């Protein structure tokens, strides 16, 4: 489903060149739950950003379902992300000024959809993460685990085929982390959603189908 071939990412300034990713080759199948591990600064998040079409590789090819994105415009990339990819971030990135229901609805704002349908789907997504009783709350009124569950609801509300999770349990204690992990596993098993998760936590990684390790931008396993 996701094919990465000889992916390189180099950050260049006037004086220094930093290789963030070097010759990464990964194929991820549909319905697979893959975890990416490695020390801080090894390029995990950069890799996830490239898979999520949020960043471009310096070299190499990346395709999703055979689709190559080198010629895509900003608008086309945005539409593809909207239709196919859900994101979960370590620091949640919820909009504090909006209620939970509005945060979850956000991806649907960029689709042609009635307000009623948007609300129905947002409620359904919140049901899946067990937060339908917190719809009118603001993110600041929720615990860390609840915020991450809202972020998961936002990621799944558009029924994407891929979820990219950047350290989704990184800011949570083990109990809340496991709760979030349970939800992700359930999504993967029940909806066959392809999930790529960056994590520092070995025990979480062990719960996924496959583990890829990075070190200094290179793939070591």
């Amino acid at each position, binding site marked *: 489903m996701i094919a990465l071939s000889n992916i390189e990412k180099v950050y260049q300034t006037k004086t220094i060149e930093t290789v963030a990713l070097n010759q990464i080759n990964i194929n991820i199948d549909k319905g697979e739950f893959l975890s990416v591990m490695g020390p801080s600064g090894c390029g995990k998040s950069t890799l996830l*950003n490239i898979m*999520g079409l*949020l*960043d471009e590789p310096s070299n190499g090819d990346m395709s999703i379902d055979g689709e190559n994105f080198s010629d895509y415009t*900003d*608008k086309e990339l*945005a*539409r593809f*992300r*909207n*239709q196919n990819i*859900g*994101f979960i*971030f370590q620091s949640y*990135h*919820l*909009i504090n*000024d*909006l209620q939970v229901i*509005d945060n979850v*609805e*956000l*991806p649907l*704002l*960029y*689709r042609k959809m009635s*307000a009623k349908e948007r609300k129905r789907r947002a409620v359904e997504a919140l049901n899946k993460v067990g937060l339908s009783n917190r719809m009118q709350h603001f993110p600041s009124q929720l615990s860390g685990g609840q915020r991450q569950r809202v972020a998961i609801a*936002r990621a799944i509300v*558009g029924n994407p085929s891929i979820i990219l999770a950047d350290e989704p349990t990184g800011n949570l204690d083990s109990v809340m982390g496991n709760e979030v992990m349970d939800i992700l596993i359930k999504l993967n098993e029940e909806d066959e959603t392809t999930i790529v998760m960056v994590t520092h936590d070995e025990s979480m990684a062990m719960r996924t189908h496959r583990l890829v390790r990075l070190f200094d931008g290179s793939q070591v396993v």
Partner: protein
Amino acid sequence: MLRNYIKIAWKVLARNKFFTFVSLFGISLTIGILLVLATLFDQIVGKHYPVGPDDHLIYVATVSQEDGKGSGWNGGVGYYLYKNFIQKMKSPKNIAVISQPKSTNSFVGDRKITLSLNYTDEDYWDMHSYSFIEGKPYNAEHMRDKARVVVITRATRDSYFGEGVSAVGKSIETDNVVYKVLGVVENVSEASIYQYSDFYVPLTLATQQLQNPDLIGQFIVILQGETENDIPTIKEEYKDLVARLTVPAASQGWKQNYKIISSYAMSKIERISSGFVIGQEPQMGLLTTILTAAMLLFMLLPALNLINLNSSRISERSSEIGVRKAFGANSMTLAWQFIVENILVTLIGGGIGLLLALGALEIIESSELITHAELGLQFNVFLFAVFLCLVFGLLSGVLPAYRMSKIQVVNALKGLNS
């Protein structure tokens, strides 16, 4: 989507109370001042009492004679020109004349009342929409008989006879001449530059002015069209008429040196566009350019302030920008969201500005700075306010919106502004 934008805009406003105050203060003050100026401008050029909405009028207010070497003389329309040429025009539905105002004094006991006296013909009353509190205007018979009758305003009646006291049939004396009051009309605003008066008397009583043999004199001629569409034809006919004019033989010798005659039939706004320079052709394009430039310049400073504030807010909203982009908002959508938010802010500022303007106009009205002016906000001025808000919103929103939309999503999620 719009509801979401409104919610965000409102929250952003509520979150930064000081910034919001500074933004709204600048916007509302600017829009308030512009609305007051627009209302005053509208009072002068718009159709206000006693000009009704269906009164399609243009004015010949000035005539000039020059020698082509920079010398000349000028003034209002001479009765000779009116009687022998303008009154014979074919295209106007109606033609009337009113003299330039003359200041006269009346006395009630020891109290002196200074009045503005104007001579008019009987047609003057037909082409306006005066509101008579009592009595009626003078007619052709009064004119023919040179009857010493007068139509006074409510304010004149109240100060001369007492407030609310009926005046019709009574005598009123000014500059030692006694007139019989024939009618009382509602007050006319001083901003109605060609209609303002306290004391309207029949034209035939202005004996000295009627014998003036020159093209230039002390009258304003009012030309009425059946519809607004007739106005260009009337202007054209008047232009042809002026082109055929020659200096009357009866004019004094020195006046014969000034053979280049100019005069235009103009609306009030065209008169302003001619810069009130007598003999100058109306220049609506120039007036529009100057007014637009002045308005934009006036709005520039608060707009720059808002641009600055908006730009500084980008950093606090970078996470939101990143999330929206990640979940499918393209740059254009985000820019549009920001512009909509900004327009909302300016509409709120505009609303406050509108209230400020209403208060200021109330003060101006009660201070009688412009005599008898009723400075209520007109619907067209209100539309102008909405238009100003939109221009303001766009002016101050586009640049920050563009910057915001260009932020790389990865950087935005990291809280960076590039």
